[in-house]
């Protein structure tokens, strides 16, 4: 069963569709998606390649706008917002984790995490404190000054997660964060995310192809034929 809503949803999709038009043909990727995500939810999203998982995550992260329907972020309709208002909402509330980690190669672990505050006005000392706290959470405290290109894949992804949670997000989206990791590193990352979600009350949306990782999630959404179907979790 879907857990009874404890609080208001952080993210709500109402009849959301997304179509891409290339030239004269339009490709409907998502249509009529209705979904609510609550703080503390850990949603795993699976589905065949090209089914629209990344498209869905981009909509959740407010990086893209739906073709139809309405996305409510924290009870606020997002369709009428300007580019800068969306940026503002995103930078304060959304953390993102990427399959390719997206770390800045010339910078140290700590600098990469501090990059989370690049477009925010945060006191330096405060930012440093939060970055170190986040790195401690993912178990990377001993690598602060190490350049990121010298890290292993699992370590890089933990830095990526630390960056995403350095400013405590309301929503964390992760597109195949374990895609490039072996199973033990992947499990470590999943455990890390699971702990974070529960401790910090963060809603997590995570795309994965690895069915064995579904146990770490509290909800399972399957993306198929342009829709997201809720699956019962074991």
């Amino acid at each position, binding site marked *: 069963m879907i857990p009874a809503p404890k609080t208001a949803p952080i993210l709500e999709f109402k009849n959301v569709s997304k179509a891409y038009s290339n030239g004269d043909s339009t490709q409907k990727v998502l249509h009529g998606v209705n979904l609510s995500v609550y703080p503390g939810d850990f949603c795993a999203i699976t589905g065949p390649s090209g089914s629209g998982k990344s498209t869905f995550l981009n909509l959740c992260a407010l990086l893209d706008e739906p073709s139809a329907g309405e996305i409510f972020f924290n009870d606020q309709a997002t369709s009428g917002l300007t580019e800068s208002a969306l940026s503002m909402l995103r930078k304060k509330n*959304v953390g993102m984790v990427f399959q390719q980690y*997206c770390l800045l190669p010339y910078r140290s672990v700590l600098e990469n995490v501090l990059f989370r505050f*690049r477009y925010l006005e945060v006191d*330096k000392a405060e930012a440093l404190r939060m970055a170190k706290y986040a790195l401690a959470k993912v178990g990377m405290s001993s690598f602060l000054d190490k350049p990121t290109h010298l890290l292993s894949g699992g370590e890089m992804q933990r830095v990526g997660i630390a960056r995403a949670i350095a400013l405590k997000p309301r929503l964390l989206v992760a597109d195949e964060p374990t895609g490039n990791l072996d199973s033990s590193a992947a499990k470590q990352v999943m455990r890390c995310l699971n702990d974070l979600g529960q401790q910090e009350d963060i809603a997590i949306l995570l795309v994965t192809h690895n069915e064995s990782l579904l146990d770490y999630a509290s909800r399972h959404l399957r993306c198929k034929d342009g829709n997201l179907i809720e699956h019962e979790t074991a």
Partner: protein
Amino acid sequence: MKPLNISPLYLDIREGIKSRPGRFGLSLFAMTIGMAVLTALIALLLGLEARSQQLSEELGTNVIAILPKPSNHKQPLKPSHAHLLRANYPGARVSAVRRSRAHTPGTDRSLVVIASESELVNIRQWKMIKGRFFDELDIQLRKRHVVVTEALHKSWRWDVGATILLRNTPFLIIGVVSSDDSALAGEYGDSRLTTGEQAVFVPLTVESHWDDQVVSEASIDALYMRPANNMAAEEILPGLKNLLSQPGMDLQNLSWIIPATLIENVKQMQTTIGLTVGAIAILCLILGGTTLTSLLVANVRDRISEIGLRRALGATEMDIAILFIAEGCVATVAAGILGPLFVHLVLVQKIGILSRLPLELGAHTVFLPLLFSVLLGILFSFWPAISAARISPAEALRSE
């Protein structure tokens, strides 16, 4: 602990530059040369502008100087021509001038002796520092009065009331005149118009016993004229030429110099230099600029996922555009500092032909290139910056 950085813009820019040091260097090099040439150009044009101002001031506003052409070995001008001008142009001030040299006992220097009429000081608009210039009476009575330059007054302590010897003839100093005309002596002036620092002025009518060469009292070296106040030198020049080229006057080979003539030479020089040097500067800057643009385009392509990350972290389109424009401006502003710096260092050393050019260095040659470099930075990085800003964040992250 390394120094803390929450990735301010400069750190971002440093990374952008580090990613393609070769192309950045090439662009910087071409830009620096362009900026150096541009700085020299500005200095030269300003210098020439100042020089033309100085030239017309030193000749005197609205003054006409009439001289035989240098090739002319005969001395065609005569004191009577001065009378002719006076008669035909009432209200005009006219003075004939004869130059010669004289030794003064007690020194081994030789002085330039300018024999003139009383109006010369008014025509050339020189200031009397002390005493007076000789007047009509001095001329008529052939007084052995002399007026000395300020330089002589200062360096040799020649003062009003003292008597000096021009060779063996004693002269009474009656005045000190400020007749600075260093610009006229220079490249764009006409040395025949100058008096120089070591000059004394005597009445035209005093017999010149001081010169070794025989100076014919019947001929003069130049005529100076300032038309009455309501007439401009340019306007009366054609009539004046007609007057002095009447048959039988034997006055074909004359140079007619007015301030506008002197300025004309400088203006021509300005145009020539502006076009040639300007073209070089523009070529260098375009070369540097296009290299910079291609560098930035490549940077944008390489850093698409970084752009996506920045957008995901809340950067607006403007933030992304500013990032690349700032990167471009770093290259051009660096050139805008290095180029002028190089020119200033070289010019202060006064090397070779540069020291002979009237170059004017100052705030203009520092801040104009700097301002220009910022504009160029924006111009050449605008397109890559805009294209980077237009990339949708979702697509940028997809290209990971």
